[in-house]
């Protein structure tokens, strides 16, 4: 259990470092980020491989279940298999998860309360996850967007990392757990289902241009800080909340809820960062993700070491870069 807490803490710290590295002067340091991702990976392995029933709670009432039945090959699992056991491997072609994400099956069939929008949302995700290469980026993009917009809803935790945990309380704050449909780069195939939601204009709408383009540049003016102090991106601020919460030890009666939400968010975030550098886990090359053409098109422009912040380029970037940028 202590290993798990330690691992959890290390994961939080690592994610914070990756996030801060975006706005450091001089651009993203490849070496340091690689080392951080190694630590993140080790901690994640410990974190996910140490089954601890207490942690995988049912969560607060009203967790809607994004039914992943759309996903091919996914068995219609019964009650969340993730409760206290290592989750069954998920057969999904496009997202190269070498280790299953516990929270995904765990919420797959919990009774849904209220919101059907998230269903739409998740349907969109499910569709996306059909495995089309072109959509792979979309999946990454949408995944990345959700934590941010979920956080933008002043969620205490990640609540709805994927838009799948919109608890009642969260729903009150945010009309739905939709991703930023409006923010999708043009031409996104999977954008349609997502935009067909009841979302009112979201605070996240302010975010689109800001985080990728502004932060690295703002860094120089803003000086050193825990975050992009000079960065006006609203997207950055909300994200700090879950991070702060992650680092606070759970306390009191809220324990279980907070813990569960943190788990969910952290695991979601892990899935973003953990799947990159997938070669570190696999011996054989050729990890799940197809390299986008855009990787080679702009000369080196889309490599993790050099993040180009133009939105059209973002669409072509690999999920690692996308994740970094979005965060």
């Amino acid at each position, binding site marked *: 259990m202590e290993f798990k807490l330690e691992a959890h803490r290390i994961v939080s710290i690592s994610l914070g470092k990756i996030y801060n590295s975006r706005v450091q002067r001089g651009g993203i340091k490849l070496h340091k980020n690689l080392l951080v991702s190694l630590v993140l990976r*080790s901690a994640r392995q410990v974190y996910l491989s140490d089954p601890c029933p207490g942690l995988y709670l049912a969560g607060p009432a009203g967790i809607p279940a994004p039914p992943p039945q759309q996903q091919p090959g996914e068995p219609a699992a019964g009650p969340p298999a993730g409760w206290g056991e290592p989750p069954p491997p998920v057969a999904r072609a496009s997202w190269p998860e070498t280790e299953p994400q516990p929270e995904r099956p765990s919420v797959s069939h919990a009774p849904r309360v209220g919101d059907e929008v998230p269903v739409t949302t998740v349907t969109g995700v499910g569709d996306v996850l059909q495995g089309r290469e072109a959509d792979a980026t979309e999946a990454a993009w949408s995944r990345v967007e959700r934590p941010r917009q979920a956080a933008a809803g002043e969620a205490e935790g990640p609540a709805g990392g994927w838009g799948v945990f919109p608890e009642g309380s969260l729903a009150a704050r945010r009309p739905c757990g939709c991703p930023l449909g409006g923010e999708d780069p043009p031409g996104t195939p999977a954008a349609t289902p997502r935009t067909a939601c009841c979302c009112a204009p979201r605070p996240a709408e302010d975010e689109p241009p800001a985080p990728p383009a502004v932060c690295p*540049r703002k860094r120089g003016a803003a000086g050193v800080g825990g975050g992009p102090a000079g960065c006006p991106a609203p997207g950055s601020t909300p994200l700090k909340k879950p991070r702060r919460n992650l680092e606070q030890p759970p306390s009191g009666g809220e324990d279980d809820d907070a813990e569960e939400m943190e788990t969910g968010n952290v695991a979601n975030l892990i899935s973003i960062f953990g799947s990159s550098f997938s070669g570190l886990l696999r011996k054989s090359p050729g990890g799940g993700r197809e390299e986008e053409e855009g990787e080679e098109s702009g000369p080196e422009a889309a490599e993790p070491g050099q993040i180009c912040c133009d939105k059209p380029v973002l669409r072509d970037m690999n999920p690692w870069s996308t994740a970094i940028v979005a965060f």
Partner: protein
Amino acid sequence: MAGAGGGGCPAGGNDFQWCFSQVKGAIDEDVAEADIISTVEFNYSGDLLATGDKGGRVVIFQREQENKSRPHSRGEYNVYSTFQSHEPEFDYLKSLEIEEKINKIRWLPQQNAAHFLLSTNDKTIKLWKISERDKRAEGYNLKDEDGRLRDPFRITALRVPILKPMDLMVEASPRRIFANAHTYHINSISVNSDHETYLSADDLRINLWHLEITDRSFNIVDIKPANMEELTEVITAAEFHPHQCNVFVYSSSKGTIRLCDMRSSALCDRHSKFFEEPEDPSSRSFFSEIISSISDVKFSHSGRYMMTRDYLSVKVWDLNMESRPVETHQVHEYLRSKLCSLYENDCIFDKFECCWNGSDSAIMTGSYNNFFRMFDRDTRRDVTLEASRESSKPRASLKPRKVCTGGKRKKDEISVDSLDFNKKILHTAWHPADNVIAVAATNNLYIFQDKIN
């Protein structure tokens, strides 16, 4: 291990007695980030000592000629030249700021009256010529002493201009700029023993340049994977062999060193030798990979050995034996239990350098709390010394320091928890021939000398 030298015994190896000589830099507690020294390098003769800082400036110190009236005191190093080598830049295409911090300085062997050095930031390498001017011409015909043109009709006689002495002026001018060859951050440059070429290394590639040609370079190592998500290691340092102009080594973040021979192929992706020490499974932790990342690699002057620095130790390798190092010296093993905290405060990413003395009998590297460590390879003795203003009286001997690792702390010992991790010595240099060392402590440069001779 923490210092082995006793109280009154000679410190360091070979009965060295290190004494304070000079300190350069502001005394202010408030350190401007731009003043933080980022590289230190003696030239081939040791008469010149160059430092680069985070503000992109290079300061060169020159050793004064020995004073005949005091034959036992060594020449002091005084400022010889200061210039702005690199400026901050902005890459508009990628919306990235390029830091002006000088990552490395390497001197070229002197071939004429002028001195040449290479200095590099993250992206651009520059060749600087430092020349002296101590004469100026006077008695021009067409202009007067102020430089104003003289009226030709007023000139009634011709004279030959003569050279008159003037106050010494040291000029630094950029002679070559080697740009746009690196996508990632340059971490090393190394001048070849042929004195015509040099290499520059970034995280994923190493390029070979000719000193005269700036518009192209040859890529000799490329470890960038086709799919960046499969990236598992990066290049952390590279150096040419001191005598064999076809041989170079590069170290990686995985703790391995590859030796490459440029005669074997144009692209040296396949190494000729591969140096790696098997990991000790009992010491595995979350941070095992980080602490095994090599931060510096240096050939010995003889060319027979090379030294690598990782986070906790210094290792000496025999080029003829790839399976394991011939020596391993612990720099600050007491930090092994603190790795998590050091990860949190980013100290675990600090890149310490290491250096050989002129005879390859001793090695030196830095640590925290302004401590630096010296290891004598012959006597197997090591010592911990401190660069501090308190022990800055001229020719004052440095007292060996000791870190208390647990249990009762003896007098004069420092406990691990009291170490100041903001005071780190990352850059040190040893005079190529004499026992003179330069130690960079944040924004101050300390120069220590051996008391004997």
